[in-house]
């Protein structure tokens, strides 16, 4: 009776210890892990300062918050979404791709196409060289070109 009672106590103690260790924190996330996420975010209060280099007390608290959330096993996407929900979309380093913001994502391809279009229009107005009158290709024109260039330069100076 006494023995089984002792065994029970032992099992309870061991069980508590096991349960205790299971609920203990995972190793504290390192500064580098925190910074890896913080550098993708901007400080909500300071202006245009990334969160990993912001020196204020508030930013220190936010980095600790990230550390705590990482320790709880939250993913990077979750943490970023948390910051957006609490502090607004401006903490992200790029505008979220919703609604009005699509405008800024369209601008680069449109600008590129506009550039291509301008080039096309310009080339169209240039008369094209006829095949027969094409000069001999080779290194000779290159050297002559050099010399001609220099001659032209001298002539222009004497204008």
């Amino acid at each position, binding site marked *: 009776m006494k023995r089984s009672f002792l065994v029970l106590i032992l099992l309870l103690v061991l069980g508590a210890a096991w349960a205790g260790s299971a609920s203990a924190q995972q190793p504290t996330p390192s500064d580098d892990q925190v910074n890896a996420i913080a550098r993708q975010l901007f400080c909500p209060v300071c202006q245009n300062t990334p969160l990993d280099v912001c020196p204020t007390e508030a930013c220190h608290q936010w980095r600790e918050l990230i550390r705590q959330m990482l320790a709880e096993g939250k993913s990077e996407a979750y943490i970023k979404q948390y910051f957006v929900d609490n502090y607004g979309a401006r903490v992200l380093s790029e505008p979220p791709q919703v609604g009005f*913001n699509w405008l800024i994502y369209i601008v680069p391809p449109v600008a590129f196409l506009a550039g291509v279009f301008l080039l096309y229009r310009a080339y169209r107005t240039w008369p094209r060289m006829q095949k027969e009158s094409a000069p001999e290709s080779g290194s000779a024109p290159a050297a002559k070109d050099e010399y001609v260039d220099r001659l032209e330069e001298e002539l222009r*100076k004497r204008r």
Partner: protein
Amino acid sequence: MLADFGFGVLVLTFLVALFGIAAGIYGYSKKEGRWVESARRAMLLTFPLVTLGVLSLVFLLVSGHYEIKYVYEVTSSTMPLYLKVTALWGGQAGSLLFWSWLMSAFASAVMLRQWDRDREFLPWVAVVTGATLAFFLSLSLFFENPFARWWQTASGEVGAMFQSAGATPLVPPDGAGLNPLLRHPGMIIHPPMLYLGFVSFVIPFSFAIAALVTGRTDDRWIRITRRWALWAWLFLSCGLVLGMWWAYDVLGWGGYWGWDPVEIAALMPWLVGLPFLHTVMIQEKRGMFKRLNMVLIILTYVMVIFGTFLTRSGVLSSVHAFAESAIGPMFFIFIGFTLIASISLLIHRWEGLKSEVPLESTSLLSREALFLLAAVLFGVIFIVCFSGVVFPLASEAVVNQQITVGPPWYKHIVGPFFAGLLLLMGVTPLSSWTYGTLKMIGRSAWKPAVPALVVPVVLLVTGMRDVVALVGFTLAPFAVCVTLYEFGRGAAARARSQGENLVVALWRLVGRNRRRYGGYIIHIAMVMMALAILGIELFQTTTQRSLATGESIQLNGYTIRYDSLAQFTYTDGRMVTRAVMSVFKDGKFLGELYPRYDLFPDGQPMTIPAIRSTLADDLYIVLVNWENISVLQTPFKVFHNPLVSWLWLGSLVFIFGTLVAAWPDKDPVAVPATMKAGYGTSPAN
């Protein structure tokens, strides 16, 4: 008393500038040479006048007249003399006056040149420079007066020029002092350089407007302003690099460019001014691209004003921006007026801006075509930067949403276009005027390409797999090899034909073609900077840890051991916390580094990184002041930045290259003065 004198002088200059504008317009419309000459003299007078104003302010700064609001804001008794002088541009009001001073210097300088051949341009150059100067003076006179005094009024302390009813003069015992972040040599020269760059671009713009108004749209205005534009570009580039150096050296985030809107505001004139420098060569040579050149120079000027507006008006939130102020609406009016006037003028003259001589056939791989392609690439980068800066404003105005357009967006988009420009730097020197085929370029290209390809091959062999890096480290060496090949080829051709030895031939070659070979040197400088940017952007590594003394951090083969920490007070009252670190690589001791954290008496902190620079890389250590510091747990952040030194070396090279390109040519025959020039009787040619 002196403040009143300074203010009075500025009022006078403002009136003189307005007179210059009026006289110029009147003289032009009535074809009265005397009035045009009067306008010229008025603009000539502005520089001595503004100088008097500036000297007054400098005297007030140096002698600690803290009853002047600006002097109070930017100086204090503990500041050394040289800092008090440079505090002239340390705050909004003073830097606006400084801007006006530089503008008047350039306006006066351009009025001093020989105008005999270009009398028609004179009135409009006076009008444009006068209008720009008058605008900036008006900001100083009516909104941001550097000579305003402190008054004690019923509602508190007020800064104003004149005494209002019931106000008594207030004389503070000491000043607030210049922000410690600004007391760095880079930060001292950076604003003057930038402003010089901005102001210099006003001159080519004024000639362009003169050309548009008078209809004299041949390349005369370009020849006149060719060197002005080159110097403008040099100053602007130096200003940008100094800003990068300061950010790297002082701000402690291990980088040099944050894609902050104010940084981009200074970059935008550079992005359109640089293609302008190239395409004007085409107009000189072949009379093409007249319209493009007009568009580019107008854009450059507008971006100068717009950039100044963004930085100062408080419209943008930025770490760099000045405090908010009432000058926003004035800028808005001036920008609106400038844009509407320039575009109207351009559209009016559009037909007349056709090419002079019938276009010879020009193929798609000719030098002209490649220059146009380069201009388009710059244009796209410019549009991307501009929209990135403006979009947050649009988001707030239209949908009331605050968003950030940050570095990732910019870097991913402009990267490929800069790569394209790198490629063009390699290909274009091999192209020739008018005609080009792939075969022709290929024939010239294979010789420099072979040594260039060694680099990516070596990288591949040593295990590099990053595609962007491989592409970048192929294009960059290619551009350098082509450029060096051009030097060699030209020198060899000359040596052969002139019978000189190679060294003399090279010297004379560069001497006779300063613009081209100076330009090639600048290209090499740009490639050096591109290499640095590739290195730091693609291969930077960083780590942060808290150490107790004796512990070490490892990063990229370096071991950094934390030896000790000291705290002491410096002579100017700041408390310095300084760590001693020993750096080892592969067991070998390389030296000691001293990262610091300064706390100024007014509470301003400054983190000063310790940097060990070599050609290959930088080791950059920051004492992290924003976590808790104690001897047991001192937080450090270490960066390894490959190739960063090439950024600073490259800037030295482009300074040299610009000097070569801009060096005045010796006239072989002195040009005799022709008949005395009155308006409307310029000599033929």
